[in-house]
């Protein structure tokens, strides 16, 4: 009570304050409500899919052929293509992003940083469909001229994966830099005191100390790659295929969802409900990765306190 009496503002203002607080709370609630309703719809429509006579859970999870129209509902070819393109993306983005992060945090002066960071942000702001056409009209012909037209198919996972790596590079670089910069300066000073060079300090002291932050970065980048849609829809191929050859075309989970929701099949067919089951699966994958990533970064924040 006392604190209210000594409050410097009049009562009226506080009512308004309460109103604003309430409104903000409602907005916060709205975003949660939207998330929950998305999950509910995904679950409900997926249930329709799994209730269908042709579909069994084990057939869905372990089947190696996906062709809903003729009764094949094995998700593995789609999942395989998603994981392969994401893996390529991470192989591209992780070393590059880490190098950029180390350079920005340990070597670059403020002036250089003030140029490079906005450039990275511009890169992050390019719509992914533009990257998709970049993959199709630049990366694919480049790969085909290097490895030969017979080896590299017109639509292939390598091209999509590499460009996806470029897409998530800014994200990985920025987060890696943050993780590295969070390492206490005492560790660096101790390292220098023992006669280490900047390179030795960076690689042998700072990076290992930032490892938990970096793994969170890796997981978040991976989650971004798994959910990425336009690049793979355009460049990775439009037919489900169980293959481990990076130079062949294979449709990813997101690519299939795009193709089907783009007016390809009728709304009351099992093909259509299948995209919700796939969406749910994607949701769980990225959700799990994001949660693990959060958990790791929460831990490393307390590490040096």
């Amino acid at each position, binding site marked *: 009570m006392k604190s209210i009496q000594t409050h410097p503002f009049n009562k009226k203002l506080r009512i308004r304050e309460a109103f604003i607080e309430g409104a903000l709370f409602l907005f916060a609630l709205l975003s949660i409500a939207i998330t929950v309703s998305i999950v509910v719809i995904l679950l409900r429509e997926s249930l329709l899919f799994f209730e269908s006579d042709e579909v069994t859970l084990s057939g869905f999870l372990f089947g190696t052929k996906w*062709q809903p*129209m*003729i009764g094949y509902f094995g998700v593995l070819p789609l999942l395989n293509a998603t994981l392969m393109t994401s893996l390529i993306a991470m192989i591209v983005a992780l070393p590059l992003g880490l190098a950029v992060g180390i350079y920005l945090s340990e070597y670059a002066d403020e002036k250089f940083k003030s140029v490079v960071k906005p450039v990275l942000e511009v890169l992050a702001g390019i719509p992914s469909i533009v990257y998709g056409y970049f993959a*199709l009209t630049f990366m694919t012909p480049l790969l*085909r001229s290097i490895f030969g*037209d*017979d080896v590299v*198919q*017109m*639509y292939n996972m390598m091209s999509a994966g590499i460009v996806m790596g470029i897409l998530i590079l800014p994200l990985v670089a920025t987060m890696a830099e943050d993780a590295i910069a969070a390492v206490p300066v005492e560790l660096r000073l101790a390292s220098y005191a023992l006669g280490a060079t900047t390179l030795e300090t960076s690689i042998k002291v700072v990076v290992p100390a930032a490892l938990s932050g970096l793994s969170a970065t890796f997981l978040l980048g991976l989650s971004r790659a798994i959910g990425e849609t336009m690049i793979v829809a355009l460049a990775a*191929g*439009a*037919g489900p*295929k169980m293959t481990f050859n990076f130079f*062949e*075309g294979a449709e990813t989970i997101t690519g299939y969802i795009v*193709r089907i929701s*783009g*007016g*390809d*099949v*009728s*709304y009351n067919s099992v*093909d259509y409900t299948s995209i919700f089951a796939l969406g749910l699966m994607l949701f769980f994958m990225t959700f799990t990765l994001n949660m693990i990533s959060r958990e790791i970064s929460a831990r490393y924040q307390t590490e040096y306190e």
Partner: protein
Amino acid sequence: MKKTVLMLMIVSALFLPLFAQGQSDAQESDPFSWIEDQMINGLPGVNPIEVTGNIVTAGSSTVFPLSERMAERFTEEGYNGTITVDSIGSGAGFERFTVAGETDISNASRPIKAKEIDQAKKIGRNPIEFKVGTDALAVTVSAENTFVKDVTMDELAMIFGSATYWSDVRSTWPRQQIQRFIPGTDSGTFDYFSEEVFDKDPAPMLNASNLQLSEDDNILVQGIEGSPYAIGYFGYAYYVENKDKLNVLAIEGVEANEDNVNAGLYPLARPLFLYSDATIMREKPQVAAFIGFYLAYVNEEVTRVGYFPADDAALAASKQGWLDAMEGLY
């Protein structure tokens, strides 16, 4: 004075059928003012400048280039509204026409199915068929492919079905994997091909290895163009557009060209349709105007787009269908 009474009588006579159908939104100006006195190619002339209101069409990606061209011409000649032509496949087009009822005209590269007619009746629509042209479905390979020039129907079934290597089909062809690029499962083209080549069973085609499906024919073109061992099929217009990059195959020794299609020799020739409904045409005069315009001038555009004219009897039947639907309104 007498003149005014006469005018009133004419105007009310024009509106009568609308009122008879429970129409209450009578407009001040005559919604059928676009109808001209003189007949053009067997239909009352259409003056696009007088046509108002929007038109929504969707359906076959094969019919799309033709409908798009007709819509362009309709606009060039003065039509002021918006006409949408969505390329989503015949099946999805019928879905929007017969279930959601969102479209005024459905483009299709196959006849409507009985199931779809029943569906349409549930929402009070009674589909009318307008045949507008003929497509010679083109089976194409890359221009770099030097070994395939012609195929038989049985070989087609192997190429798009059971065979893995080109050499499985003919021993003189190279032992390279066949890369297949075909339209999506809901397209009329896919349906038509599985009917003609696989006896209505799509399973062998979908079971084939190295298969890419897309509703976007440009994606197919790009895929086929990309490898000498790729093959695919789509509407003839997409071949015409990409003549320099693709070779079209002769089927059973018959080349896909106008003479063979008109003579009924080419085995993969199929009709192209528009579907609408009499009530829509009467309540939305702009839809009737566009279809009338379409039927009157389609033969001037159809070959330019890359298809072939419908035979005279079929086109006459389409025009008769238009006249029947609009009976008493012009």
